[in-house]
C-alpha cells in the first residue's frame, strides 16, 4: 500500500511538471494570409497539360501582418482556398482542368499537389479549385522561396498567350 501511495505522489508531481512546462511554452496562434501571384503561358499552347510557375519569396512579416519575433516557429500551413481568374471572362475558355502544386529547390522537399478543378466551368471567368485536405506545407514556408506551379489542361490548341492571377488563402499556425 505505501508503495501505491508513493506512485500516486510521483504521478502527481509529473503531472504538475508537465502542466508547468506546457504553460511556459509560447502560445500557438493561427493567422489566415492571402497571397496573390501571376501565372503566364506564352502561346501557341497545345492541347494537354501546360505548366506555368511563379517563384514565391517567403516574407513572414508580410504574411503574418506584423514584425517577425525572434524564435518564431511555423508549425503548420495548409491551403484553405485557391482561386484563378483571367483578365477577361473568356480567358478560361478551352481550359479543361487546373491543378495547383508546390515545389522547392531543396532536395528534401518533394513536390505536392495542393488543389484541383476538373472540369473547369469557364463561363464565370473564375476558377475555384478544391484544396487538398491533407497537404501540409510548413516546410516550404520555412524556406527563403518556393514555386507555385499551375498546370492548365487545355482541351484544344490555343494561339494566344494566357495569363491568370491566382489568389490563395493559407492557414498559418505558429508560436
Amino acid at each position: 500500500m505505501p508503495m501505491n501511495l508513493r506512485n500516486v505522489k510521483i504521478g502527481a508531481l509529473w503531472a504538475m511538471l508537465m502542466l508547468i512546462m506546457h504553460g511556459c511554452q509560447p502560445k500557438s496562434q493561427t493567422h489566415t494570409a492571402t497571397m496573390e501571384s501571376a501565372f503566364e503561358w506564352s502561346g501557341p499552347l497545345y492541347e494537354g497539360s501546360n505548366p506555368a510557375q511563379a517563384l514565391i519569396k517567403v516574407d513572414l512579416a508580410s504574411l503574418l501582418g506584423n514584425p517577425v519575433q525572434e524564435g518564431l516557429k511555423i508549425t503548420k500551413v495548409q491551403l484553405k482556398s485557391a482561386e484563378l481568374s483571367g483578365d477577361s471572362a473568356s480567358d478560361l475558355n478551352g481550359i479543361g482542368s487546373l491543378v495547383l502544386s508546390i515545389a522547392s529547390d531543396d532536395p528534401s522537399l518533394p513536390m505536392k499537389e495542393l488543389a484541383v478543378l476538373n472540369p473547369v466551368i469557364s463561363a464565370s471567368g473564375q476558377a475555384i479549385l478544391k484544396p487538398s485536405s491533407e497537404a501540409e506545407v510548413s516546410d516550404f514556408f520555412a524556406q527563403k522561396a518556393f514555386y507555385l506551379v499551375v498546370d492548365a489542361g487545355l482541351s484544344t490548341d490555343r494561339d494566344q498567350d494566357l495569363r491568370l492571377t491566382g489568389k490563395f488563402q493559407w492557414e498559418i499556425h505558429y508560436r
Partner: protein
Amino acid sequence: MKKLTLFLLGLALCMQAFAIMPGDDGDRLLGVWEPSNGRARVKVEKIGSKYYGKIVWLKEPNDPKSGLPKTDMNNPDANLRNVPLKGYRMLKDFVYQENNQWSEGTIYDPLNGSTYSCTIKMTDPNTLDIRGYIGVSAFGRTDVWKRLAVKK
C-alpha cells in the same frame, strides 16, 4: 607567325566547341520518353533546379467504365482524385548528380496509388534505366524507357 595563326585558329575552334555544349548536363533528361510497356509517354521538364516527368499521352486515355478521361482515382487524398491522369507528374523531384544519373526523386504508379523512391540512369542519349524501389535500391525493379524523338 604561321604557328601563332594556327594556335589562334585552334583556340577559336575550342571556344566554339565549348559554346555549343549544353549549359547543364542534367538537362539531357529533358524530352519525351516511353516506358517499356508502351502504355504512356512521359515528358520530362525542369521546375527550378529539379526534374519532373508528366504523362502527356496514354494508350487508353479514357476510363472503360465511364468513358470519361482517366483521373488519379487511387490518390490517397480523396480531394485530389479528380486530377487528370494525362498531365499528371509521375516522376518528381529528380536532382542531377553526375555520371548520367539523377536521384532523390520518386515515381508514382497510378494503377495502385503508390509512390516509390526512384533513380534514373541514362545508359545512352536515348535510353533510361528507371529503378523504382522501397527503402534500399537493391529491393526494386528497373524498367527501360526509350526517348521518343531519337537523338543522333
